[in-house]
Protein backbone atom coordinates (compact mmCIF):
# COMPACT_ATOMS: atom_id res chain seq x y z
CA UNK A 1 0.00 0.00 0.00
CA UNK A 2 1.85 3.07 -1.18
CA UNK A 3 5.36 2.70 0.20
CA UNK A 4 4.49 0.23 2.93
CA UNK A 5 5.49 -3.28 1.93
CA UNK A 6 4.73 -6.42 3.84
CA UNK A 7 5.09 -10.10 3.09
CA UNK A 8 2.79 -12.72 4.57
CA UNK A 9 3.24 -16.46 4.50
CA UNK A 10 1.11 -19.33 5.71
CA UNK A 11 2.55 -22.68 6.71
CA UNK A 12 0.60 -25.71 7.85
CA UNK A 13 1.96 -28.49 10.00
CA UNK A 14 0.43 -31.50 11.64
CA UNK A 15 0.06 -31.19 15.36
CA UNK A 16 -1.98 -32.13 18.37
CA UNK A 17 -4.97 -30.00 19.24
CA UNK A 18 -5.08 -28.37 22.64
CA UNK A 19 -7.00 -30.20 25.33
CA UNK A 20 -9.51 -27.39 25.80
CA UNK A 21 -10.62 -27.45 22.16
CA UNK A 22 -10.16 -30.95 20.76
CA UNK A 23 -12.16 -30.45 17.61
CA UNK A 24 -10.46 -27.32 16.43
CA UNK A 25 -7.16 -26.66 14.76
CA UNK A 26 -4.67 -24.08 15.95
CA UNK A 27 -3.67 -20.86 14.31
CA UNK A 28 -0.65 -18.91 15.39
CA UNK A 29 -0.05 -15.42 14.09
CA UNK A 30 3.28 -13.70 14.36
CA UNK A 31 4.51 -10.48 12.88
CA UNK A 32 8.15 -9.55 12.59
CA UNK A 33 9.36 -6.03 11.96
CA UNK A 34 12.69 -6.29 10.22
CA UNK A 35 15.36 -3.62 10.53
CA UNK A 36 15.18 -3.06 6.79
CA UNK A 37 11.95 -1.24 7.46
CA UNK A 38 13.29 1.25 9.96
CA UNK A 39 16.57 1.48 11.87
CA UNK A 40 14.93 1.47 15.26
CA UNK A 41 13.71 -2.08 14.67
CA UNK A 42 17.15 -3.56 15.08
CA UNK A 43 17.44 -6.16 17.80
CA UNK A 44 14.73 -5.78 20.42
CA UNK A 45 13.46 -2.45 19.15
CA UNK A 46 10.75 -3.78 16.92
CA UNK A 47 9.48 -6.27 19.47
CA UNK A 48 6.87 -4.03 21.01
CA UNK A 49 5.37 -3.04 17.71
CA UNK A 50 5.36 -6.60 16.41
CA UNK A 51 3.62 -7.82 19.55
CA UNK A 52 0.98 -5.15 19.22
CA UNK A 53 0.41 -6.03 15.57
CA UNK A 54 0.28 -9.76 16.26
CA UNK A 55 -2.23 -9.25 19.04
CA UNK A 56 -4.44 -7.03 16.89
CA UNK A 57 -4.36 -9.53 14.01
CA UNK A 58 -5.09 -12.44 16.29
CA UNK A 59 -8.09 -10.60 17.67
CA UNK A 60 -9.45 -9.82 14.23
CA UNK A 61 -8.91 -13.22 12.67
CA UNK A 62 -9.85 -15.53 15.49
CA UNK A 63 -13.01 -13.88 16.78
CA UNK A 64 -14.66 -14.63 20.08
CA UNK A 65 -13.84 -17.57 22.28
CA UNK A 66 -16.73 -19.63 21.08
CA UNK A 67 -15.50 -19.12 17.56
CA UNK A 68 -18.30 -16.84 16.46
CA UNK A 69 -17.29 -14.28 13.91
CA UNK A 70 -13.93 -15.86 13.29
CA UNK A 71 -12.33 -15.23 9.96
CA UNK A 72 -10.87 -18.70 9.86
CA UNK A 73 -13.07 -21.65 10.64
CA UNK A 74 -11.03 -23.59 13.13
CA UNK A 75 -13.08 -26.77 12.97
CA UNK A 76 -12.18 -27.14 9.32
CA UNK A 77 -8.59 -27.56 10.44
CA UNK A 78 -9.13 -30.63 12.53
CA UNK A 79 -8.40 -34.07 11.11
CA UNK A 80 -9.00 -36.50 13.92
CA UNK A 81 -10.76 -35.14 16.97
CA UNK A 82 -8.45 -34.87 19.89
CA UNK A 83 -5.48 -36.39 18.11
CA UNK A 84 -4.35 -34.70 14.96
CA UNK A 85 -5.07 -31.31 13.58
CA UNK A 86 -3.50 -28.76 11.36
CA UNK A 87 -1.46 -26.03 12.96
CA UNK A 88 -1.48 -22.93 10.84
CA UNK A 89 1.43 -20.60 11.26
CA UNK A 90 0.75 -17.22 9.75
CA UNK A 91 3.86 -15.05 9.61
CA UNK A 92 4.07 -11.48 8.49
CA UNK A 93 7.20 -9.57 7.72
CA UNK A 94 7.32 -5.80 7.48
CA UNK A 95 9.81 -4.90 4.79
CA UNK A 96 9.25 -1.23 4.32
CA UNK A 97 7.29 0.97 6.61
CA UNK A 98 5.46 4.09 5.57
CA UNK A 99 2.55 4.06 7.95
CA UNK A 100 -0.61 1.96 8.21
CA UNK A 101 1.13 -1.38 8.61
CA UNK A 102 -1.89 -3.10 10.11
CA UNK A 103 -4.07 -2.62 7.05
CA UNK A 104 -1.34 -3.84 4.76
CA UNK A 105 -0.82 -6.92 6.90
CA UNK A 106 -4.53 -7.67 6.91
CA UNK A 107 -4.68 -7.50 3.14
CA UNK A 108 -1.52 -9.58 2.73
CA UNK A 109 -2.79 -12.28 5.05
CA UNK A 110 -6.09 -12.43 3.21
CA UNK A 111 -4.25 -12.90 -0.07
CA UNK A 112 -1.91 -15.48 1.44
CA UNK A 113 -4.78 -17.47 2.88
CA UNK A 114 -6.65 -17.54 -0.41
CA UNK A 115 -3.52 -18.91 -2.02
CA UNK A 116 -3.14 -21.59 0.63
CA UNK A 117 -3.77 -25.19 -0.24
CA UNK A 118 -4.02 -27.65 2.62
CA UNK A 119 -2.94 -31.08 1.40
CA UNK A 120 -5.46 -33.86 1.61
CA UNK A 121 -4.90 -36.30 4.42
CA UNK A 122 -5.68 -40.01 4.48
CA UNK A 123 -6.03 -41.53 7.90
CA UNK A 124 -4.96 -45.09 8.38
CA UNK A 125 -7.40 -46.83 10.67
CA UNK A 126 -6.36 -46.29 14.23
CA UNK A 127 -5.70 -49.42 16.28
CA UNK A 128 -6.76 -48.27 19.72
CA UNK A 129 -7.86 -44.82 20.87
CA UNK A 130 -4.58 -44.35 22.66
CA UNK A 131 -2.25 -44.69 19.73
CA UNK A 132 -1.50 -41.87 17.41
CA UNK A 133 -3.25 -42.69 14.14
CA UNK A 134 -1.08 -42.85 11.08
CA UNK A 135 -1.62 -40.02 8.77
CA UNK A 136 -0.70 -40.11 5.14
CA UNK A 137 -0.22 -36.70 3.66
CA UNK A 138 -0.85 -36.67 -0.04
CA UNK A 139 1.26 -34.46 -2.21
CA UNK A 140 -1.08 -34.16 -5.12
CA UNK A 141 -4.47 -33.11 -3.91
CA UNK A 142 -4.97 -29.84 -2.17
CA UNK A 143 -7.93 -28.32 -0.44
CA UNK A 144 -8.38 -24.67 -1.17
CA UNK A 145 -8.76 -22.61 1.90
CA UNK A 146 -12.04 -20.85 2.30
CA UNK A 147 -11.43 -17.14 2.59
CA UNK A 148 -14.83 -15.69 1.92
CA UNK A 149 -15.17 -14.90 5.57
CA UNK A 150 -11.72 -13.44 6.09
CA UNK A 151 -11.91 -9.81 6.83
CA UNK A 152 -10.33 -6.57 5.99
CA UNK A 153 -8.82 -4.13 8.45
CA UNK A 154 -9.23 -0.39 8.08
CA UNK A 155 -7.33 2.03 10.27
CA UNK A 156 -8.64 5.51 10.92
CA UNK A 157 -6.17 7.94 12.36
CA UNK A 158 -7.30 10.97 14.25
CA UNK A 159 -5.19 14.03 13.56
CA UNK A 160 -6.41 17.16 15.23
CA UNK A 161 -10.13 17.17 14.69
CA UNK A 162 -10.29 15.13 11.51
CA UNK A 163 -9.77 11.51 10.82
CA UNK A 164 -7.97 10.07 7.84
CA UNK A 165 -7.79 6.64 6.34
CA UNK A 166 -4.54 4.96 5.38
CA UNK A 167 -2.10 7.34 7.01
CA UNK A 168 1.51 7.59 5.89
CA UNK A 169 4.18 7.68 8.56
CA UNK A 170 4.38 11.45 8.31
CA UNK A 171 0.70 11.67 9.15
CA UNK A 172 1.02 9.00 11.81
CA UNK A 173 3.67 10.96 13.64
CA UNK A 174 1.09 13.66 14.27
CA UNK A 175 -1.72 11.41 15.32
CA UNK A 176 -3.36 11.58 18.69
CA UNK A 177 -5.03 8.21 18.41
CA UNK A 178 -5.96 5.57 15.86
CA UNK A 179 -8.82 3.13 15.64
CA UNK A 180 -8.43 -0.06 13.61
CA UNK A 181 -11.68 -1.68 12.61
CA UNK A 182 -11.99 -5.02 10.91
CA UNK A 183 -15.18 -5.61 8.99
CA UNK A 184 -16.33 -8.81 7.35
CA UNK A 185 -18.31 -9.35 4.21
CA UNK A 186 -21.70 -9.02 5.87
CA UNK A 187 -20.82 -5.61 7.20
CA UNK A 188 -20.43 -6.81 10.77
CA UNK A 189 -17.60 -5.55 12.89
CA UNK A 190 -15.30 -8.36 13.87
CA UNK A 191 -12.69 -6.55 15.85
CA UNK A 192 -11.78 -3.10 16.94
CA UNK A 193 -8.66 -1.85 18.64
CA UNK A 194 -7.81 1.62 19.70
CA UNK A 195 -4.22 2.70 19.74
CA UNK A 196 -2.78 5.83 21.15
CA UNK A 197 -3.23 7.40 24.51
CA UNK A 198 -5.61 10.24 23.85
CA UNK A 199 -9.20 9.94 24.89
CA UNK A 200 -11.99 9.93 22.33
CA UNK A 201 -15.56 11.03 22.66
CA UNK A 202 -18.02 8.13 22.19
CA UNK A 203 -19.84 9.95 19.38
CA UNK A 204 -16.56 10.21 17.49
CA UNK A 205 -16.14 6.46 17.81
CA UNK A 206 -19.61 5.76 16.40
CA UNK A 207 -18.79 8.01 13.50
CA UNK A 208 -15.47 6.28 12.87
CA UNK A 209 -17.15 2.90 12.83
CA UNK A 210 -19.61 3.92 10.12
CA UNK A 211 -16.85 5.47 8.02
CA UNK A 212 -14.77 2.32 8.43
CA UNK A 213 -17.64 0.13 7.26
CA UNK A 214 -18.06 2.24 4.17
CA UNK A 215 -14.39 2.21 3.29
CA UNK A 216 -13.98 -1.49 3.99
CA UNK A 217 -16.64 -2.41 1.45
CA UNK A 218 -14.68 -0.72 -1.29
CA UNK A 219 -11.41 -2.15 -0.07
CA UNK A 220 -12.76 -5.68 0.12
CA UNK A 221 -14.08 -5.62 -3.42
CA UNK A 222 -10.82 -4.24 -4.72
CA UNK A 223 -8.79 -6.84 -2.84
CA UNK A 224 -10.92 -9.71 -4.06
CA UNK A 225 -10.55 -8.65 -7.68
CA UNK A 226 -6.79 -8.20 -7.27
CA UNK A 227 -6.41 -11.62 -5.69
CA UNK A 228 -8.48 -13.27 -8.40
CA UNK A 229 -6.40 -11.53 -11.06
CA UNK A 230 -3.15 -12.61 -9.44
CA UNK A 231 -4.30 -16.21 -9.17
CA UNK A 232 -5.39 -16.25 -12.79
CA UNK A 233 -1.96 -15.01 -13.80
CA UNK A 234 -0.31 -17.69 -11.72
CA UNK A 235 -2.29 -20.42 -13.38
CA UNK A 236 -1.38 -19.19 -16.81
CA UNK A 237 2.37 -19.06 -16.22
Amino acid at each position, binding site marked *: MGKTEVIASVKAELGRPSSSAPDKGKVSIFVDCSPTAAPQFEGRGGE*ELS*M*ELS*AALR*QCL*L*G*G*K*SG*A*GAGINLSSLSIVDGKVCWDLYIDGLVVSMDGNVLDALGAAIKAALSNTGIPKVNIASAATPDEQPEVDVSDEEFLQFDTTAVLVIVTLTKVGRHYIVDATSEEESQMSSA*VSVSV*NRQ*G*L*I*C*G*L*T*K*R*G*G*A*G*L*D*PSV*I*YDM*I*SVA*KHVSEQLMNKLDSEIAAAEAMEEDS
Partner: protein
Amino acid sequence: MAAKAGATPATYSPSPTTNKKTRPPLFTDVDWVRPDGRDFHQCRPAFLRTGAVNAASGSAYAEFGNTKVIVSIFGPRESKKAMMYSDIGRLNCNVSYTTFATPVRGQASENKDISSQLHKSLEGAIMLDTFPKTTVDVFALVLESGGCDLPVVISCASLALADAGIMMYDLVAAVSVSCLGKNLVIDPVTEEENYQGGSLMITCLPSRNEVTQLTITGEWSASKIHEAMELCLDACSKLGKIMRSCLKESASTSQE
Protein backbone atom coordinates in the same frame (compact mmCIF):
# COMPACT_ATOMS: atom_id res chain seq x y z
CA MET B 1 -24.01 -49.87 44.15
CA ALA B 2 -22.02 -52.38 46.16
CA ALA B 3 -21.33 -54.41 43.04
CA LYS B 4 -19.95 -51.38 41.24
CA ALA B 5 -17.73 -50.42 44.10
CA GLY B 6 -16.25 -53.90 44.09
CA ALA B 7 -15.45 -53.81 40.36
CA THR B 8 -11.82 -54.23 39.52
CA PRO B 9 -9.93 -51.11 38.38
CA ALA B 10 -9.33 -52.60 34.96
CA THR B 11 -12.99 -52.47 33.98
CA TYR B 12 -13.60 -49.00 35.33
CA SER B 13 -12.56 -46.44 32.75
CA PRO B 14 -13.07 -42.87 33.79
CA SER B 15 -14.12 -40.65 30.96
CA PRO B 16 -12.59 -37.26 31.55
CA THR B 17 -14.65 -35.63 28.85
CA THR B 18 -17.96 -35.82 30.66
CA ASN B 19 -17.27 -32.75 32.79
CA LYS B 20 -16.77 -30.55 29.80
CA LYS B 21 -19.32 -31.97 27.39
CA THR B 22 -22.34 -31.68 29.68
CA ARG B 23 -22.44 -27.94 29.27
CA PRO B 24 -24.47 -27.35 26.15
CA PRO B 25 -24.60 -23.79 24.97
CA LEU B 26 -27.91 -22.78 26.48
CA PHE B 27 -27.04 -19.17 26.07
CA THR B 28 -29.33 -18.75 23.12
CA ASP B 29 -32.27 -18.93 25.52
CA VAL B 30 -33.61 -15.54 26.37
CA ASP B 31 -34.60 -16.37 29.90
CA TRP B 32 -31.36 -17.99 30.97
CA VAL B 33 -30.25 -17.20 34.50
CA ARG B 34 -26.66 -16.18 35.17
CA PRO B 35 -24.63 -18.46 37.44
CA ASP B 36 -24.55 -15.94 40.27
CA GLY B 37 -28.16 -14.88 39.88
CA ARG B 38 -27.44 -11.42 38.49
CA ASP B 39 -29.49 -9.55 35.95
CA PHE B 40 -28.00 -9.32 32.46
CA HIS B 41 -27.19 -5.69 32.90
CA GLN B 42 -26.04 -5.81 36.46
CA CYS B 43 -22.41 -5.60 37.49
CA ARG B 44 -20.89 -7.49 40.34
CA PRO B 45 -20.67 -5.64 43.66
CA ALA B 46 -17.25 -4.07 44.00
CA PHE B 47 -15.05 -4.06 47.08
CA LEU B 48 -12.23 -1.52 46.81
CA ARG B 49 -9.64 -0.64 49.37
CA THR B 50 -6.57 1.52 49.08
CA GLY B 51 -3.41 1.27 51.12
CA ALA B 52 -3.15 -2.49 50.88
CA VAL B 53 0.65 -2.58 50.63
CA ASN B 54 2.58 -0.53 53.17
CA ALA B 55 5.91 -0.49 51.35
CA ALA B 56 4.56 0.94 48.13
CA SER B 57 3.97 4.57 47.26
CA GLY B 58 0.39 3.68 46.61
CA SER B 59 -1.61 0.53 46.37
CA ALA B 60 -5.11 -0.78 46.04
CA TYR B 61 -6.96 -4.05 46.39
CA ALA B 62 -10.09 -4.77 44.40
CA GLU B 63 -12.54 -7.61 44.62
CA PHE B 64 -15.28 -7.97 42.02
CA GLY B 65 -17.06 -11.19 42.85
CA ASN B 66 -14.41 -13.86 42.40
CA THR B 67 -11.84 -11.69 40.67
CA LYS B 68 -9.30 -10.42 43.18
CA VAL B 69 -6.54 -8.07 42.15
CA ILE B 70 -3.90 -6.19 44.06
CA VAL B 71 -1.94 -3.35 42.47
CA SER B 72 1.02 -1.48 43.88
CA ILE B 73 2.71 1.61 42.54
CA PHE B 74 6.35 2.45 43.00
CA GLY B 75 7.55 5.85 42.00
CA PRO B 76 8.24 8.27 40.59
CA ARG B 77 11.66 6.66 40.62
CA GLU B 78 14.82 7.46 38.80
CA SER B 79 14.86 6.07 35.26
CA LYS B 80 17.52 3.52 34.43
CA LYS B 81 20.69 5.07 33.09
CA ALA B 82 20.33 3.09 29.88
CA MET B 83 17.15 4.96 28.96
CA MET B 84 17.44 8.23 27.14
CA TYR B 85 16.53 11.52 28.70
CA SER B 86 12.90 12.34 28.18
CA ASP B 87 11.06 15.40 29.37
CA ILE B 88 7.94 13.48 30.13
CA GLY B 89 7.69 10.69 32.64
CA ARG B 90 7.61 7.02 31.78
CA LEU B 91 5.06 4.45 32.76
CA ASN B 92 6.07 0.85 33.23
CA CYS B 93 3.28 -1.69 33.64
CA ASN B 94 3.50 -5.31 34.59
CA VAL B 95 0.63 -7.70 35.14
CA SER B 96 1.21 -11.18 36.46
CA TYR B 97 -1.04 -14.01 37.50
CA THR B 98 -0.37 -16.11 40.55
CA THR B 99 -0.10 -19.81 39.83
CA PHE B 100 -3.26 -20.50 41.82
CA ALA B 101 -5.31 -17.81 40.10
CA THR B 102 -7.02 -20.03 37.57
CA PRO B 103 -8.90 -23.31 38.07
CA VAL B 104 -6.16 -25.11 36.14
CA ARG B 105 -2.79 -24.44 37.71
CA GLY B 106 -0.44 -22.29 35.70
CA GLN B 107 -1.69 -19.51 33.50
CA ALA B 108 -0.90 -19.21 29.81
CA SER B 109 1.64 -16.46 29.40
CA GLU B 110 -0.54 -13.69 28.05
CA ASN B 111 1.06 -11.38 30.55
CA LYS B 112 2.85 -9.13 28.10
CA ASP B 113 -0.29 -8.59 26.11
CA ILE B 114 -2.30 -7.61 29.18
CA SER B 115 0.54 -5.42 30.46
CA SER B 116 0.64 -3.45 27.22
CA GLN B 117 -3.14 -3.04 27.28
CA LEU B 118 -2.93 -1.73 30.84
CA HIS B 119 -0.22 0.66 29.73
CA LYS B 120 -2.34 1.97 26.86
CA SER B 121 -5.36 2.53 29.09
CA LEU B 122 -3.45 4.40 31.76
CA GLU B 123 -1.15 6.57 29.69
CA GLY B 124 -4.03 8.69 28.44
CA ALA B 125 -5.07 9.58 31.96
CA ILE B 126 -1.79 10.34 33.71
CA MET B 127 -0.14 13.74 33.44
CA LEU B 128 3.21 12.41 32.39
CA ASP B 129 4.84 15.82 32.16
CA THR B 130 4.59 16.34 35.91
CA PHE B 131 7.42 13.88 36.51
CA PRO B 132 10.08 14.18 33.81
CA LYS B 133 13.13 11.94 33.76
CA THR B 134 11.48 9.49 36.17
CA THR B 135 9.51 6.29 35.88
CA VAL B 136 6.36 5.20 37.61
CA ASP B 137 6.08 1.42 38.01
CA VAL B 138 2.69 -0.22 38.12
CA PHE B 139 2.74 -3.82 39.30
CA ALA B 140 -0.51 -5.74 39.22
CA LEU B 141 -1.02 -9.18 40.64
CA VAL B 142 -4.14 -11.17 39.91
CA LEU B 143 -4.81 -13.32 42.95
CA GLU B 144 -7.86 -15.02 41.57
CA SER B 145 -9.21 -14.82 38.08
CA GLY B 146 -12.99 -14.97 38.12
CA GLY B 147 -13.71 -13.40 34.78
CA CYS B 148 -13.38 -9.89 33.41
CA ASP B 149 -9.78 -9.61 34.64
CA LEU B 150 -8.37 -6.75 32.61
CA PRO B 151 -11.10 -4.20 33.44
CA VAL B 152 -10.72 -4.94 37.14
CA VAL B 153 -6.94 -4.54 36.89
CA ILE B 154 -7.32 -1.21 35.11
CA SER B 155 -9.79 0.20 37.61
CA CYS B 156 -7.70 -1.01 40.54
CA ALA B 157 -4.53 0.45 39.01
CA SER B 158 -6.07 3.89 38.62
CA LEU B 159 -7.23 3.76 42.23
CA ALA B 160 -3.71 2.87 43.31
CA LEU B 161 -2.28 5.72 41.24
CA ALA B 162 -4.63 8.12 42.96
CA ASP B 163 -3.55 6.69 46.32
CA ALA B 164 0.09 7.26 45.36
CA GLY B 165 -0.61 10.89 44.61
CA ILE B 166 0.33 10.72 40.92
CA MET B 167 -1.40 13.53 39.07
CA MET B 168 -4.07 12.33 36.69
CA TYR B 169 -6.66 13.94 34.48
CA ASP B 170 -9.34 11.64 35.80
CA LEU B 171 -9.87 8.21 37.32
CA VAL B 172 -9.97 5.39 34.79
CA ALA B 173 -12.92 3.04 34.98
CA ALA B 174 -13.14 -0.08 32.84
CA VAL B 175 -16.00 -2.41 32.09
CA SER B 176 -16.43 -5.24 29.68
CA VAL B 177 -19.52 -6.63 28.02
CA SER B 178 -19.93 -10.11 26.58
CA CYS B 179 -22.20 -11.10 23.74
CA LEU B 180 -23.83 -14.47 24.40
CA GLY B 181 -26.18 -15.45 21.62
CA LYS B 182 -28.39 -12.40 21.29
CA ASN B 183 -27.94 -11.09 24.79
CA LEU B 184 -25.52 -8.53 26.03
CA VAL B 185 -24.17 -9.52 29.40
CA ILE B 186 -22.17 -7.06 31.43
CA ASP B 187 -19.22 -8.02 33.63
CA PRO B 188 -18.96 -11.68 32.57
CA VAL B 189 -17.75 -14.49 34.79
CA THR B 190 -15.12 -16.96 33.52
CA GLU B 191 -17.83 -19.47 32.61
CA GLU B 192 -19.66 -16.91 30.52
CA GLU B 193 -16.43 -15.74 28.94
CA ASN B 194 -15.65 -19.20 27.65
CA TYR B 195 -18.86 -19.32 25.68
CA GLN B 196 -19.02 -15.77 24.55
CA GLY B 197 -19.54 -14.92 20.93
CA GLY B 198 -17.87 -11.56 21.28
CA SER B 199 -16.55 -9.17 23.85
CA LEU B 200 -16.27 -5.44 24.11
CA MET B 201 -14.07 -3.72 26.66
CA ILE B 202 -14.13 -0.01 27.29
CA THR B 203 -11.92 2.05 29.53
CA CYS B 204 -13.08 5.58 29.99
CA LEU B 205 -12.60 8.67 32.06
CA PRO B 206 -16.04 9.02 33.65
CA SER B 207 -16.17 12.74 34.36
CA ARG B 208 -14.66 13.76 31.07
CA ASN B 209 -16.73 11.24 29.09
CA GLU B 210 -13.72 10.21 27.06
CA VAL B 211 -12.85 6.73 25.93
CA THR B 212 -9.17 5.88 26.27
CA GLN B 213 -9.34 2.34 25.05
CA LEU B 214 -11.82 0.22 23.19
CA THR B 215 -11.28 -3.41 22.27
CA ILE B 216 -13.80 -5.49 20.38
CA THR B 217 -13.52 -9.15 19.45
CA GLY B 218 -16.10 -11.37 17.82
CA GLU B 219 -18.89 -10.35 15.50
CA TRP B 220 -20.89 -7.21 16.15
CA SER B 221 -23.31 -5.15 14.16
CA ALA B 222 -23.11 -1.39 14.43
CA SER B 223 -26.33 -1.11 16.43
CA LYS B 224 -25.15 -3.71 18.91
CA ILE B 225 -21.96 -1.78 19.38
CA HIS B 226 -23.95 1.36 20.14
CA GLU B 227 -26.07 -0.49 22.67
CA ALA B 228 -23.06 -2.11 24.30
CA MET B 229 -21.16 1.16 24.48
CA GLU B 230 -24.10 2.95 26.10
CA LEU B 231 -24.31 0.17 28.66
CA CYS B 232 -20.60 0.29 29.38
CA LEU B 233 -20.39 4.05 29.67
CA ASP B 234 -23.25 4.02 32.13
CA ALA B 235 -21.56 1.32 34.20
CA CYS B 236 -18.25 3.17 34.03
CA SER B 237 -19.74 6.34 35.45
CA LYS B 238 -21.27 4.38 38.32
CA LEU B 239 -17.96 2.63 38.91
CA GLY B 240 -16.23 6.02 38.88
CA LYS B 241 -18.53 7.21 41.67
CA ILE B 242 -17.78 4.12 43.74
CA MET B 243 -14.05 4.61 43.26
CA ARG B 244 -14.30 8.25 44.28
CA SER B 245 -16.23 7.44 47.45
CA CYS B 246 -13.66 4.78 48.33
CA LEU B 247 -10.85 7.32 48.01
CA LYS B 248 -12.70 9.89 50.07
CA GLU B 249 -13.33 7.34 52.76
CA SER B 250 -9.70 6.35 53.06
CA ALA B 251 -8.63 10.01 53.03
CA SER B 252 -11.00 10.86 55.84
CA THR B 253 -9.95 7.91 57.98
CA SER B 254 -6.28 8.81 57.60
CA GLN B 255 -6.98 12.33 58.75
CA GLU B 256 -8.46 11.19 62.04
